[in-house]
């Protein structure tokens, strides 16, 4: 059997998602037996620009270089996988869409300021994405399961259960009960509720579930004492661009409870 040819690339991002692939330490050696890891610029010197079965792309499109790279990798890939929150939702860098330039301008390096930028946006706003591995960072076991599934011709269905499902199975007491603004009920799981396991509320890094009850989540947070500005900021931190209806729901009259 010919091995699947795999490339792992990054555009604007912190490289943490590419690291998540490597974090499968115990199985990494087995994995490179199973696939032909041909390109991985993060750790490899030679990365041929050619056709791949599978390309993982970390990061979001934030400048023209990113855009060109995304388009080229799309052309090179049979299956293009958005790897991690930046690629999937735009993550924290995309928050720039929701704030004025004067709020961040002074934070930029002088040289960067002269760069030609693009409004920071997730990969699927520019090219077609075949599969999403969300999360900041993505779950390393999910990356591994995806690769194995692709080799076997049985790509796993992406999780669309809320974080609460795994959280409750892990026997966590609910953080909303102690007044923390946990977004678990509207956020796609598959992360094994890792943040809540450690006592930190869910910030929604994996993006909203298709089935979310957003009006109810907002009214619940309000009842817990959080104001509209806080709720809006929190929900936009990781997935603002995937919640285009947020403003309307937040200020709408369609509130329950």
């Amino acid at each position, binding site marked *: 059997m010919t091995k699947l040819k795999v490339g792992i690339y990054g555009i604007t991002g912190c490289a943490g998602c590419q690291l998540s692939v490597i974090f499968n330490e115990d199985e990494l050696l087995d994995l490179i037996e199973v696939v032909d890891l041909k390109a991985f610029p993060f750790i490899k010197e030679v990365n041929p620009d050619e056709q791949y079965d599978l390309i993982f792309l970390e990061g979001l499109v934030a400048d023209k270089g990113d855009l060109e790279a995304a388009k080229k990798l799309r052309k090179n890939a049979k299956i293009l996988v958005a790897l991690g929150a930046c690629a999937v939702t735009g993550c924290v860098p995309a928050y720039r869409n929701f704030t004025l330039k004067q709020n961040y301008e002074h934070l930029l390096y002088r040289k960067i300021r002269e760069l030609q930028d693009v409004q920071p946006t997730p990969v699927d706003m520019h090219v077609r994405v075949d599969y999403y591995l969300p999360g900041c960072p993505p779950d390393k076991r999910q990356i591994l399961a995806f690769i194995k*599934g692709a080799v076997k011709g049985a790509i796993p269905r992406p999780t*669309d*259960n809320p974080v*609460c499902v795994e959280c409750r*199975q892990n026997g966590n007491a609910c953080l*909303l009960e102690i007044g923390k603004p946990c977004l678990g009920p509207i956020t796609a799981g598959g992360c094994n509720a890792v943040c809540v396991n450690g006592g930190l509320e869910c910030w929604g890094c994996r993006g909203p579930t298709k089935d979310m009850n957003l009006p109810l989540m907002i009214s*619940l947070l309000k009842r817990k004492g959080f104001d509209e500005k806080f709720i809006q900021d929190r929900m936009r931190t990781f997935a603002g661009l995937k919640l285009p209806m947020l403003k309307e729901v937040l200020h709408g009259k369609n509130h*329950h409870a």
Partner: protein
Amino acid sequence: MRLYRLEKKRFAEFIGRLMLDAEVIAPVKKDVVRFLPIAHPEEVHLEKNAFFPLKEYFFPQNQTLFQFDGKSFMAQVPKPKKRVFFGVRRCDLTAIRHQDIAFGEAGDPYYEAMRKSSLLIGYHCPKAPSPYCFCGSLPQIEYFDLMFFDQQTHFLIETGSGEGEKAVEEHAEVFVPAETPKPDTKIPGADRLHVGNIAPLYDHPDWKKGVDLCLSCGACTALCPTCYCFEIHDELSTADLSAGKRSRSWSSCQLPGFTRVAGDHVFRKEREHRFKHRIYHQLEYFKEKHGVPLCVGCGRCIEACPTRIDFVKLLNGMKA
């Protein structure tokens, strides 16, 4: 059935004796009260019922059913050591009975193995431990090896099985036969549900009041001591892609994926249908098959619900 007496000052001694040859799992006060294996008799906490049910000890969240290697499937039936479950309330005992029925009907060897060599010691609630309790509105079924009744200075202990009798004999030093009549088994403050037959209510407009408050997060089903739905998935070994394991994990009827078939058709797509399905399975469907409702009235699904949907109040309101 026989009655015995155990002085409270000898309670720790009794638990200590149980611990000599078995793992003792009892309610322990942590961030919330949880059923945990105890290291000291003093850890037993009887003031409140455990926030999480006991079911994970018989029906774990994740359980390997088979290992496979490309040539054969090898069953991974567990062999737990002797376990004593102490301080189990009546609702949770009835819940174990109902799971015994559900898994027993399927001849499930994994559940059977986990239930084997477990001694169930109940604790009769002197009064409803939570404002959400409603076990008194549902049939109470005696299902224990021993039952502890709290009598201030001492416990009265009722035996409910041969295993229970044997346990008393083994620890005869701490028990005294009691000549008193069997205490009242009614639990004050636990009869909140006033609707017996919910079948005619399926199309009632008030369901919307509950559905509008539902996040479909699955907390209710995860914390339910009776919910026994599961799904089965395969996982491949990285070293050998023809090998791997098949395991099952808890599932929840509150999620859209619960009824999704190949081709992406979802049968219970509407939140309302999912919401009602749980209540109807609990109060109606199980009863049609097995004569008793699946629900045992512990109230955990209400207490654990982020928006506190009280389906008992909801149903009571529909009847009025």
